[in-house]
């Protein structure tokens, strides 16, 4: 069989491992049940269910793709198609702190690339990579809808506005 792209959940080394079967903890199970009452179709719950899953596991593993599919009566291919379309679903594990630097135009002309370059240099990683201690992942993202307070760095769910290299340096040690 031809080699599959490593991002494909059906690639040999990523095929769902039965031993790693996943299930929502009770709180998320309840939130999932509530979602089902808010939409006229099960399928429409896919995006919010994936958000829930990422909250629990940090990324959407092939096991999660299968699990979410089974919850919503969708094929793994349908679920994976959605996961790979949207930027926010992580297709591989990310660091405890996901440093998302906006480099779109308004942030760029406010020196966002200085922050981005500095983070990669200081953490000794390439864009998209995670530090060995699993703490940080650095990525470049598109406009965060906060250009009036550029440059903006989103760390996990939080916006950090009017940033610069010095502020980033002061912030990093607090992210443990």
């Amino acid at each position, binding site marked *: 069989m031809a080699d599959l792209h490593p991002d494909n959940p059906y690639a040999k080394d990523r095929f769902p491992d039965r031993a790693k079967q996943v299930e929502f903890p009770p709180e998320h199970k309840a939130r999932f049940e509530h979602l089902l009452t*808010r*939409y*006229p*179709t099960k*399928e*429409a*719950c*896919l*995006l*919010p269910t*994936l*958000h829930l899953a990422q909250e629990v596991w940090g990324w959407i593993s092939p096991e999660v793709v299968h699990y979410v599919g089974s919850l*919503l009566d969708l094929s793994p291919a349908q679920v994976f*198609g*959605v996961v790979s*379309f*949207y*930027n*926010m*679903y992580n297709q591989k594990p990310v660091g405890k702190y996901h440093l998302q630097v906006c*480099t*779109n*135009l*308004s942030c*760029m*002309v*406010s*020196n*966002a*690339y*200085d922050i*981005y*370059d500095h983070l*990669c240099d200081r953490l000794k990683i*390439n*864009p*998209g*990579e995670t530090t060995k201690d699993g703490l940080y992942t650095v*990525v*470049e*993202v*598109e*406009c*965060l*809808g*906060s*250009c*009036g*307070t*550029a440059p903006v760095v*989103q760390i996990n*769910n*939080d*916006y950090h506005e009017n940033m610069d290299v010095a502020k980033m340096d002061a912030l990093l040690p607090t992210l443990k």
Partner: protein
Amino acid sequence: MTEPIKVLTANIDKPNSASIETYGDYAAARKALAMKPEDVVTLVKDSELRGRGGAGFPTGMKWSFVPKNAPKPTYLLCNADESEPGTFKDRVLIEQDPHLLLEGMLIAAYAIGSCPMGYIYIRGEFYFGATVLDKALEEARAKGFLGKNIFGTGFDFDMTVHRGAGAYICGEETGLIESVEGHRGQPRVKPPFPAVVGVFGGPTVVNNVETLACVPLIVKNGAEWFKGFGTPKNTGPKLYCVSGNVKKPGVYEFPMGINLKELIYDHCGGITGDRKLKAVIPGGASAPMLLPDEIDLPLNFDAVMKAGSMLGSAGIIVLDESVCIVDAVWRLAKFFAHESCGQCTPCREGTNWLESILDRLERGEGRPQDADLLLDMSDNIGGKSLCALGDAAIGPVISSVRKFRDEYVYHVTHKSCLPGTRRYRRLDMPVAAH
């Protein structure tokens, strides 16, 4: 000098501006729900309110397209995707005055005869905004302003906050509809228009946050009052987002049609470091650029269109003389290439080509024909793709090649940026796989 106003933003500076106690008791919705739905539509038509999401389509007319007695339920969707680079106005309303939006949605839902569930499609990155909206919804339900038999009128309505997951194309109304249904956000062929067949197969109205926020004000104060702001066909209070190289960036509210030059120099304090202005993008990343001698114009839909650009989402991006225009346009091209949904060949392939040609110009590997090649590529994308993203992607490219051709040529002949201009990114940085 035109004074800024506080109409849409009247509440945002109050303490606890997001709470229902500060906001009030939904008096406008009470008034609207006592009217006939078609009278509410007529009122909004009379106000000449035009959509604030980008296209400026008359809101009352959009509502009147919804067929009565359709076989499937009618839906109201709020577009809170706010992903057009340079745009950050809806976030202010969502985070600081969520009840204004919810009241606007309640009135809109009643006017179009919506089924008892509406959705607020908020971009996934606005996590905080989504929590504010959820809390506001709880408050409104607790007061009986949402739910069953609202204000004893027999009208039932509730809303769900639906978070996107990082895709600009889900701001396009049919991409948004696909995304609510749980699919990839790939736009649909129109017709049928959403007003006839939209989400879950039912008639659907998609309106921007700011558009919906205008509705309670119109119901409360009347169409004539609303038309008192701005000029005929370009009415109402308007939020303008100013960013880039200005001293005081931010969201500014004016009657529709503030002069662009006045906005930049008088209200935003002028250009950072008192440098010279180079170009202005008046309506978000999709809008063609204007030169400094083109900015003495009112920021309303018709005037900006006449000037060869568009008001779009009123995201004004200011670029000063130190910015390399090829670099700036490359960054926007990279955005559109990343955000193309991939459905149509001209857009999917073309946006990537635009990005790579601009990149090679920046790397000193440009070819003499590249400026014309960019125009030619653009010609093969514009009007030849399914949704407006393709046309959006070529706006900055065409306008910059036409207005800054010398700077493009300089990149080819000197293999560098114009003296005194800078590129911001490092060319040796590896690009992360996506």
